[in-house]
Protein backbone atom coordinates (compact mmCIF):
# COMPACT_ATOMS: atom_id res chain seq x y z
CA UNK A 1 0.00 0.00 0.00
CA UNK A 2 1.15 3.53 -0.60
CA UNK A 3 2.03 5.27 2.62
CA UNK A 4 1.24 8.97 2.80
CA UNK A 5 2.66 11.72 4.97
CA UNK A 6 0.99 11.61 8.35
CA UNK A 7 0.32 7.90 8.25
CA UNK A 8 1.32 6.24 11.47
CA UNK A 9 2.79 2.77 11.57
CA UNK A 10 3.25 1.26 14.96
CA UNK A 11 5.67 -1.55 15.50
CA UNK A 12 5.79 -4.55 17.78
CA UNK A 13 5.46 -4.74 21.51
CA UNK A 14 7.79 -6.52 23.93
CA UNK A 15 6.86 -9.20 26.42
CA UNK A 16 4.70 -8.31 29.36
CA UNK A 17 1.24 -7.90 27.91
CA UNK A 18 -1.69 -9.21 29.92
CA UNK A 19 -2.40 -11.94 27.38
CA UNK A 20 0.96 -13.51 28.07
CA UNK A 21 0.63 -13.62 31.82
CA UNK A 22 -0.33 -16.75 33.71
CA UNK A 23 -3.15 -16.34 34.39
CA UNK A 24 -3.82 -13.52 31.94
CA UNK A 25 -4.50 -10.14 33.51
CA UNK A 26 -6.48 -7.39 31.87
CA UNK A 27 -7.54 -3.83 32.54
CA UNK A 28 -10.68 -3.19 34.51
CA UNK A 29 -12.97 -0.21 34.22
CA UNK A 30 -13.12 2.30 36.97
CA UNK A 31 -10.65 3.94 39.26
CA UNK A 32 -9.09 2.11 42.12
CA UNK A 33 -11.25 2.23 45.20
CA UNK A 34 -9.32 3.45 48.15
CA UNK A 35 -10.07 2.32 51.61
CA UNK A 36 -10.50 5.79 53.04
CA UNK A 37 -10.02 9.27 51.76
CA UNK A 38 -10.38 12.20 54.08
CA UNK A 39 -11.08 15.68 52.91
CA UNK A 40 -10.76 18.70 55.06
CA UNK A 41 -9.31 22.10 54.90
CA UNK A 42 -5.79 23.27 55.00
CA UNK A 43 -4.46 26.74 55.08
CA UNK A 44 -0.76 27.39 55.38
CA UNK A 45 0.58 30.83 56.16
CA UNK A 46 -1.10 33.59 54.25
CA UNK A 47 -1.51 31.54 51.15
CA UNK A 48 -5.05 30.62 50.45
CA UNK A 49 -5.53 26.98 49.72
CA UNK A 50 -5.76 26.30 46.06
CA UNK A 51 -9.01 24.58 45.41
CA UNK A 52 -8.86 21.39 43.48
CA UNK A 53 -12.54 21.24 42.79
CA UNK A 54 -15.68 23.08 43.63
CA UNK A 55 -17.55 19.86 43.83
CA UNK A 56 -19.73 19.80 46.89
CA UNK A 57 -20.18 23.53 47.11
CA UNK A 58 -23.37 25.30 46.18
CA UNK A 59 -21.44 28.27 44.90
CA UNK A 60 -17.82 29.27 44.48
CA UNK A 61 -16.49 29.49 47.97
CA UNK A 62 -13.62 31.75 48.89
CA UNK A 63 -11.47 30.44 51.63
CA UNK A 64 -11.23 32.86 54.53
CA UNK A 65 -7.80 34.52 54.47
CA UNK A 66 -7.55 35.04 58.20
CA UNK A 67 -7.21 31.45 59.16
CA UNK A 68 -4.24 30.92 61.29
CA UNK A 69 -1.10 29.24 60.04
CA UNK A 70 -0.91 25.68 61.10
CA UNK A 71 -4.64 25.37 61.37
CA UNK A 72 -5.55 21.74 61.53
CA UNK A 73 -8.40 20.42 59.49
CA UNK A 74 -8.97 17.96 62.25
CA UNK A 75 -10.02 20.61 64.73
CA UNK A 76 -13.61 20.78 63.59
CA UNK A 77 -16.30 19.81 66.01
CA UNK A 78 -19.95 19.20 65.62
CA UNK A 79 -22.53 16.48 65.87
CA UNK A 80 -21.78 12.92 65.13
CA UNK A 81 -19.39 13.98 62.40
CA UNK A 82 -16.65 15.55 64.44
CA UNK A 83 -13.77 16.51 62.33
CA UNK A 84 -13.64 17.93 58.89
CA UNK A 85 -13.46 14.56 57.41
CA UNK A 86 -15.50 11.47 57.48
CA UNK A 87 -14.79 7.85 56.89
CA UNK A 88 -17.10 6.29 54.38
CA UNK A 89 -16.99 2.51 54.52
CA UNK A 90 -16.77 1.15 51.02
CA UNK A 91 -16.73 4.59 49.48
CA UNK A 92 -13.99 6.55 47.87
CA UNK A 93 -14.35 10.23 48.57
CA UNK A 94 -16.04 12.60 50.89
CA UNK A 95 -16.28 16.26 50.07
CA UNK A 96 -18.00 18.48 52.57
CA UNK A 97 -19.69 21.79 52.31
CA UNK A 98 -17.96 24.95 53.43
CA UNK A 99 -19.41 26.45 56.56
CA UNK A 100 -20.73 29.94 56.96
CA UNK A 101 -17.90 32.43 57.16
CA UNK A 102 -20.20 35.19 58.35
CA UNK A 103 -20.89 33.24 61.51
CA UNK A 104 -17.24 32.70 62.14
CA UNK A 105 -17.46 29.15 61.12
CA UNK A 106 -14.92 27.65 58.90
CA UNK A 107 -15.03 24.93 56.39
CA UNK A 108 -13.75 24.37 53.01
CA UNK A 109 -13.77 22.54 49.83
CA UNK A 110 -10.72 20.38 49.85
CA UNK A 111 -7.27 20.29 51.21
CA UNK A 112 -6.59 17.43 53.50
CA UNK A 113 -6.56 14.10 51.85
CA UNK A 114 -5.55 10.98 53.62
CA UNK A 115 -5.50 7.56 52.13
CA UNK A 116 -5.21 4.67 54.51
CA UNK A 117 -3.57 1.36 53.90
CA UNK A 118 -0.34 2.76 52.51
CA UNK A 119 -2.05 3.68 49.26
CA UNK A 120 -0.99 7.32 49.23
CA UNK A 121 1.62 6.88 46.47
CA UNK A 122 -0.93 4.98 44.42
CA UNK A 123 -3.44 7.75 44.93
CA UNK A 124 -0.98 10.39 43.75
CA UNK A 125 -0.10 8.23 40.82
CA UNK A 126 -3.76 7.92 39.94
CA UNK A 127 -4.23 11.66 40.14
CA UNK A 128 -1.32 12.06 37.79
CA UNK A 129 -2.61 9.42 35.43
CA UNK A 130 -6.05 10.94 35.47
CA UNK A 131 -4.98 14.51 34.91
CA UNK A 132 -1.80 14.09 32.92
CA UNK A 133 0.11 16.41 35.19
CA UNK A 134 1.84 16.06 38.50
CA UNK A 135 -0.48 16.56 41.43
CA UNK A 136 0.71 20.05 42.47
CA UNK A 137 -0.44 21.33 39.10
CA UNK A 138 -3.84 19.71 39.13
CA UNK A 139 -5.59 22.51 41.00
CA UNK A 140 -3.89 25.21 38.99
CA UNK A 141 -4.97 23.69 35.76
CA UNK A 142 -8.45 22.76 36.91
CA UNK A 143 -8.20 19.52 35.08
CA UNK A 144 -9.77 17.22 37.55
CA UNK A 145 -13.38 16.44 38.21
CA UNK A 146 -14.32 14.64 41.35
CA UNK A 147 -17.52 12.78 41.85
CA UNK A 148 -19.33 13.13 45.13
CA UNK A 149 -20.41 9.80 46.44
CA UNK A 150 -21.68 11.16 49.69
CA UNK A 151 -21.77 14.55 51.28
CA UNK A 152 -22.29 15.87 54.74
CA UNK A 153 -22.74 19.52 55.53
CA UNK A 154 -21.35 20.11 58.99
CA UNK A 155 -21.67 23.21 61.02
CA UNK A 156 -18.09 23.60 61.91
CA UNK A 157 -16.30 26.01 64.12
CA UNK A 158 -12.67 26.61 64.63
CA UNK A 159 -11.63 25.49 68.07
Amino acid sequence: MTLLPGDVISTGTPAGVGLGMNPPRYLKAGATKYEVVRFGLQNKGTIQPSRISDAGLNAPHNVHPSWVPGYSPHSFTGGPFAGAWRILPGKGFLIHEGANEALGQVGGSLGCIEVLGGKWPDFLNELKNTCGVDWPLIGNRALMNLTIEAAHFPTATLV
Partner: protein
Amino acid sequence: MELPKEPVIFFKSTTSLVGPNDPLVIPRGATKVDWEVEVAVVIGKKALYVSREDALDFVAGYVLHNDYSERSFQLERGGQWVKGKSADTFAPLGPFLATPDEISDVGRLAMWLKVNGETRQNSSTANMIFDVARWLGTSASS
Protein backbone atom coordinates in the same frame (compact mmCIF):
# COMPACT_ATOMS: atom_id res chain seq x y z
CA MET B 1 3.13 -17.71 20.82
CA GLU B 2 4.89 -18.74 17.62
CA LEU B 3 7.06 -16.06 16.07
CA PRO B 4 5.55 -14.63 12.88
CA LYS B 5 7.59 -14.86 9.67
CA GLU B 6 6.98 -11.24 8.87
CA PRO B 7 5.37 -8.32 10.68
CA VAL B 8 1.65 -8.81 11.16
CA ILE B 9 0.00 -5.76 9.65
CA PHE B 10 -3.46 -4.56 10.66
CA PHE B 11 -5.32 -1.29 10.71
CA LYS B 12 -6.43 0.73 13.65
CA SER B 13 -9.28 3.11 12.97
CA THR B 14 -8.77 6.86 13.08
CA THR B 15 -11.56 7.00 15.67
CA SER B 16 -9.36 5.01 18.03
CA LEU B 17 -6.89 7.90 18.19
CA VAL B 18 -6.68 9.85 21.44
CA GLY B 19 -4.13 11.89 23.32
CA PRO B 20 -1.58 10.22 25.56
CA ASN B 21 -3.34 11.17 28.78
CA ASP B 22 -6.93 10.72 27.74
CA PRO B 23 -9.01 8.10 29.53
CA LEU B 24 -9.21 4.63 28.11
CA VAL B 25 -12.83 3.77 27.42
CA ILE B 26 -13.50 0.09 27.83
CA PRO B 27 -16.04 -0.85 25.17
CA ARG B 28 -19.26 -2.71 25.81
CA GLY B 29 -18.78 -6.40 26.24
CA ALA B 30 -15.05 -6.13 26.69
CA THR B 31 -13.46 -8.48 29.18
CA LYS B 32 -9.85 -8.68 28.01
CA VAL B 33 -8.51 -5.19 27.44
CA ASP B 34 -4.75 -5.40 27.18
CA TRP B 35 -1.85 -2.99 26.78
CA GLU B 36 1.08 -2.89 24.33
CA VAL B 37 3.76 -0.24 24.51
CA GLU B 38 5.12 0.42 21.04
CA VAL B 39 7.20 2.80 19.01
CA ALA B 40 5.12 4.30 16.23
CA VAL B 41 6.52 5.82 13.07
CA VAL B 42 4.99 8.88 11.45
CA ILE B 43 5.46 8.88 7.69
CA GLY B 44 6.91 12.05 6.19
CA LYS B 45 6.96 11.29 2.47
CA LYS B 46 4.81 9.29 0.10
CA ALA B 47 6.22 5.79 0.11
CA LEU B 48 5.66 2.81 -2.17
CA TYR B 49 7.96 -0.12 -2.96
CA VAL B 50 10.33 1.03 -0.30
CA SER B 51 13.30 -1.14 0.39
CA ARG B 52 14.29 -1.90 3.93
CA GLU B 53 17.53 0.01 3.35
CA ASP B 54 15.75 3.20 2.31
CA ALA B 55 12.81 2.91 4.70
CA LEU B 56 14.02 5.32 7.36
CA ASP B 57 14.33 8.09 4.73
CA PHE B 58 10.54 8.26 4.75
CA VAL B 59 10.20 8.81 8.48
CA ALA B 60 9.01 12.19 9.76
CA GLY B 61 9.37 11.15 13.36
CA TYR B 62 8.74 8.70 16.13
CA VAL B 63 5.96 8.76 18.64
CA LEU B 64 4.94 6.71 21.65
CA HIS B 65 1.94 4.47 21.21
CA ASN B 66 -0.07 2.14 23.38
CA ASP B 67 -1.69 -0.44 21.11
CA TYR B 68 -4.65 -1.24 23.33
CA SER B 69 -6.21 -4.54 22.33
CA GLU B 70 -9.30 -6.39 23.42
CA ARG B 71 -8.04 -9.95 23.17
CA SER B 72 -11.36 -11.74 22.91
CA PHE B 73 -12.47 -9.43 20.10
CA GLN B 74 -9.08 -9.79 18.44
CA LEU B 75 -8.44 -13.50 18.75
CA GLU B 76 -11.59 -15.41 19.66
CA ARG B 77 -14.09 -14.28 17.06
CA GLY B 78 -12.36 -15.03 13.75
CA GLY B 79 -11.87 -12.45 11.04
CA GLN B 80 -9.48 -9.59 11.37
CA TRP B 81 -7.64 -8.25 14.37
CA VAL B 82 -9.15 -4.82 13.72
CA LYS B 83 -12.12 -5.68 15.95
CA GLY B 84 -9.90 -5.87 18.98
CA LYS B 85 -7.66 -3.01 18.00
CA SER B 86 -9.91 -0.19 16.87
CA ALA B 87 -12.28 0.59 19.72
CA ASP B 88 -12.53 4.27 20.57
CA THR B 89 -9.54 5.45 22.61
CA PHE B 90 -7.51 2.32 21.81
CA ALA B 91 -4.75 4.30 20.10
CA PRO B 92 -3.22 6.93 22.35
CA LEU B 93 -0.26 8.64 20.70
CA GLY B 94 2.30 11.06 22.04
CA PRO B 95 2.79 13.29 23.90
CA PHE B 96 5.60 14.32 21.56
CA LEU B 97 6.99 13.44 18.19
CA ALA B 98 10.74 12.95 18.07
CA THR B 99 12.31 13.71 14.73
CA PRO B 100 14.96 11.31 13.40
CA ASP B 101 17.79 13.75 14.15
CA GLU B 102 16.79 13.58 17.82
CA ILE B 103 17.13 9.81 18.00
CA SER B 104 20.51 8.45 17.06
CA ASP B 105 19.32 4.86 16.85
CA VAL B 106 15.67 3.92 16.98
CA GLY B 107 16.83 0.34 17.47
CA ARG B 108 18.19 1.18 20.91
CA LEU B 109 15.34 2.81 22.79
CA ALA B 110 14.16 1.71 26.19
CA MET B 111 10.46 0.95 26.26
CA TRP B 112 8.40 0.29 29.35
CA LEU B 113 4.83 0.24 30.57
CA LYS B 114 3.32 0.31 34.02
CA VAL B 115 -0.22 -0.49 35.10
CA ASN B 116 -1.23 1.32 38.28
CA GLY B 117 2.43 1.87 39.06
CA GLU B 118 3.36 -1.77 38.52
CA THR B 119 5.88 -2.50 35.79
CA ARG B 120 4.48 -4.87 33.19
CA GLN B 121 6.70 -4.24 30.18
CA ASN B 122 10.36 -3.31 30.42
CA SER B 123 12.41 -3.86 27.31
CA SER B 124 14.20 -2.18 24.44
CA THR B 125 13.60 -1.71 20.77
CA ALA B 126 16.81 -3.71 20.42
CA ASN B 127 14.74 -6.77 21.32
CA MET B 128 12.22 -6.29 18.54
CA ILE B 129 11.72 -9.29 16.26
CA PHE B 130 11.40 -6.92 13.30
CA ASP B 131 13.12 -3.55 13.33
CA VAL B 132 11.38 -0.31 12.43
CA ALA B 133 12.67 -0.39 8.86
CA ARG B 134 11.24 -3.86 8.38
CA TRP B 135 7.83 -2.75 9.59
CA LEU B 136 7.86 0.18 7.25
CA GLY B 137 9.15 -1.82 4.32
CA THR B 138 6.56 -4.53 4.83
CA SER B 139 3.74 -2.00 4.92
CA ALA B 140 4.87 -0.33 1.69
CA SER B 141 6.04 -3.43 -0.14
CA SER B 142 3.17 -3.94 -2.54
